[in-house]
């Protein structure tokens, strides 16, 4: 895969780390609601097709960003 880092441009995927599902909103800091945190942390969709994920350019500029990637084909849809 070639991943478009918003800062460095197109780079090989081996420079990046995967950071998980980026489709959900993190509960506000301080929210004590167990169910809200449970759903956020443990429940995920596993769509066959386009998905939005967090990636970090960990061996580059260290920027975190949201990326659209097709899980079935690895086609990169661009920054999300």
């Amino acid at each position, binding site marked *: 895969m070639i991943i478009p880092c918003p800062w460095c441009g197109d780079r090989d995927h081996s420079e990046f*780390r995967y950071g998980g599902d980026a489709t959900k909103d993190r509960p506000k*800091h301080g929210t004590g*609601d*167990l169910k809200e945190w449970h759903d956020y942390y443990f429940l995920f969709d596993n769509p066959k097709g386009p998905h939005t994920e*967090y990636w*970090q350019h960990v061996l580059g500029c260290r920027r975190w960003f*949201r990326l659209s990637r097709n899980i079935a084909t690895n086609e990169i849809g661009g920054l999300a």
Partner: protein
Amino acid sequence: MKRFRRLAADGRIDRARPVGARFDGKPLQGFAGDTLASALLANNKVLVARSFKYHRPRGIVSAGIEEPNGLFTLGEDATTEPNVAATVTDLYDGLIARSQNAWPSPDFDLMSVNSLLSPLFQSGFYYKTFMGPFKGSWMFYEPFIRRAAGLGTATDLPDPDRYETRYEFCDVLVIGSGPAGLAAALTAGRSGARVILAEQDSDFGGSLLSGSDAEHEAWRTASVAELQGLDNVKIRTRTTVQGLYDANLAVLVERRDHLKPNARKGQSRQILTSLRAKMIVMATGSIERPMVFSNNDRPGVMLASALRTYANRYAVAPEKRAVIVTNNDSAYDAAVDLAKAGVAVTIADHRATVEASHFARAASHGIAVFPATGIADVEGAKGISRVKLSGAHAVSIDCDVLGMAGGWSPVVHLSSHGGIKPKYDEAIAGFVPGGFAPTQFGAGAMMGVFGLAAAVADGANAGAKAASAAGFGKTRLVYPPEHVTDRTYAILPVWSAPQHGKGKAFVDFQSDVTTKDVKNAHQEGYQSVEHLKRYTTLGMGTDQGKTSNINALALMAEHRGISIPEAGTTTFRPPYAPLTMGAIAGRTVGAHFRPVRRSPLHDWHEKNGATFIDAGLWKRAWYYAWAGNSPETAYVKEMELVRRNVGLSDVSTLGKIDVQGPDAAEFLNRIYVNGFAKLPVGKVRYGVMLNDDGVVIDDGTTARISDTQFYMTTTTAQAGEVMSWLEYLLQCHWTELNVQVASLTDEWAGMAVSGPKAREALKLAFPDIDVSNEALPYMGCRDVVFEGVTLRLLRMSFSGELAYEVHVGADHAIPLWEHILKAAAPLGIRPYGLEALASLRIEKGHVAGLELDHRNTLDDLGLGKMAGKEKDYVGKALRFREDCQSPDRWSLVGLELMEPDKKLRGGSILFAANDEIKGHGRGYITSVTWSTELNKFIALGLFQGGLKHEGEEIVAAFPLRNEQAKLKIVSPHFIDHEGARLNA
């Protein structure tokens, strides 16, 4: 019996350059341009191998990468490489080849007794026989099977050759240099696009190299010359595209064995290239199929196209007589070329009607054609002697070779690496690509487009499209030679000829799979092609079924009464052809296997008697020679130094993170479970971080340097993870916080001065700096300047003793370290290593990486009271979920060995006193040390229910050594409960 001879003239061999190789210990002569296979045939070596299971005599079948039989072990000793196809091995001076799977030789093979045991080796044999009849059957039979069935043996010596990996980029990659590939590369090259043409053969031209037409040859040489003249085009021989991956990543492996590369001179034997191509044109050609009949594996039974290649390209022809069996028109080219070489040829054509022009062409070369005729059987013990025909002309013919022209299978492998399944094309009776990604194109025979003119047109078209898609719209098309009329193909597939002979009819030569095996598989209910493959081992050899898959598929479809497309095909995965582990590894071997991290003090340790140990990527000083020569004794002496005097230890590997910004205090207050908002400037605090799910990620200390600047340390192991986690929270979620983080792990060194005399040591080292208890109390920190260099003094302790850490820029690490050692020498200060460091912390009951294994909660580690009740912190909500609150969780305990004559081992499984010693127990030991304070082995561990069981006696079992020992559960804080030493 002589079956092959070298022709007196012609061929693409260089007769002025004789080549001497060795085969099975004897000289083998050939010429430059020969392959090992053509040299063997030229020397009339026809029986050259024994088959995988039955040890049947086998000869070379093909002239290409699809070769199922002609596999040899090349090289010797450390350079031994087994299972290399002779058909793709250049003959060069000094080449050493040995036959395989035969003892003492292929010609006289004692293992051929397996032939008599053949009922044992039928499909499903492994599964049925070795899963029963009694328990342990496989263990009993395995050594026999491993010896009797198999291919070559790899060496276990280190590979002395050098391999290279590299990255490359281009606009258009063209795979294959047959007529279509040459046309594609040239058309794309003329546009100005950066083109790479990869050819697996030793020369460009594909099928053109096997022909005999002068005009075709002129077209080939002109095309190659033009490509060579284009600066934007790179053309590579002996380069196999092994796989296509996401985003047009192609993996190419170039073989340079024929150059006899010398690793000592920095020359690489093979080069693996990861190539990013904007566009890819596949022109991978097609492979001829064998036909299935009784004894079709006798040496001398070969592909018809291979006979033609050997005659035209290598000037090696059958001695006198050849029979060719066919179901299509392509056989007539082979027959005519053999006839031109002086071979008497008979064609057995399965088709009842053959176009008149073929009859006429055959007749003009003295070739007899028998329509509606097939093969009944092949005779000859160690090689073909006679062919019995069946059908309309059921006669017997004495001959040297039998050529099989079973039709052509497009090489669709690469087109399906991306997941697009091939589709069946009735017109050519073969699978063609099922489609292409928008950045990929196919041309020529791999698309089922046979014939020179058609292939060139198809290739030129694909090359133009690819160049245009890559942004190079203007080009000139390439045209075929002028006087080409493509002959017809007219295939009539005959998948299973009626069985006349009693011999085995092989579907897969390399895996020794017969028609009977396919039938058995069907009868046993293995109907899917994927099951057929696994049950019979069909297509699972080094050739991956390149010649056998479609025949097997067709047979299975017939058994099931369905069509071939309904039966489907198996999945093609990389690599396309066998490749060496060396090529994959490249230069990431030995010391280059993974990066090595060295502390800024590494050189000092090395010069001063340190023994190193790997800790992740780090090389850490384990213990020093002053304390002893074995870790078991040295660390105890180093511990005593710290407990009674003062020692100096390198802690530079700790993660070090600079946290700055107006919201830095708020940020730290969120990520640590304990409060950091009100940490005063000049103070250090121990902190613990949780993940969102309430599990402990890491611990460490953070010092407040100013209102807006903090200095964080993490454990060595988690430094990278913590850094990424902080960046994630700041960049993705808490964008309202104005905080910057920067890693200082490599920029700063750290050294711990520990022991009751630590303060005295610092006083001696820094006489002008006030390090009194008042100026630098426990958990205090101060930046000071010493000889113009900023030092960060932090009074904190990992060992439980009075201790300080001195942090300094990495460049100043060694001078500072040496200065402290020298200044404090009168006190007896000495360095201590990782083993002592780790043991001291166990005595103090400090958790570390072995306990912080990302499965434990704060409460599991006895740290629950640290968490702020009122404040919010990451992981707070889920920390209180039901599972994390269970009283039976495995939690931290201290352990003391009750049996002084025994030894404790890390990883031991813990059981209650009355438990049966079986299974996973109730916990395990995480860290063990000899305690110099208590004079016994002590440990930290996780035990079900934790300190609820304080005072109880339990059992530690180490099943690998069949050891058991009695322990007592105690507080994990073995020394100085009141902290008197820390505050001294």
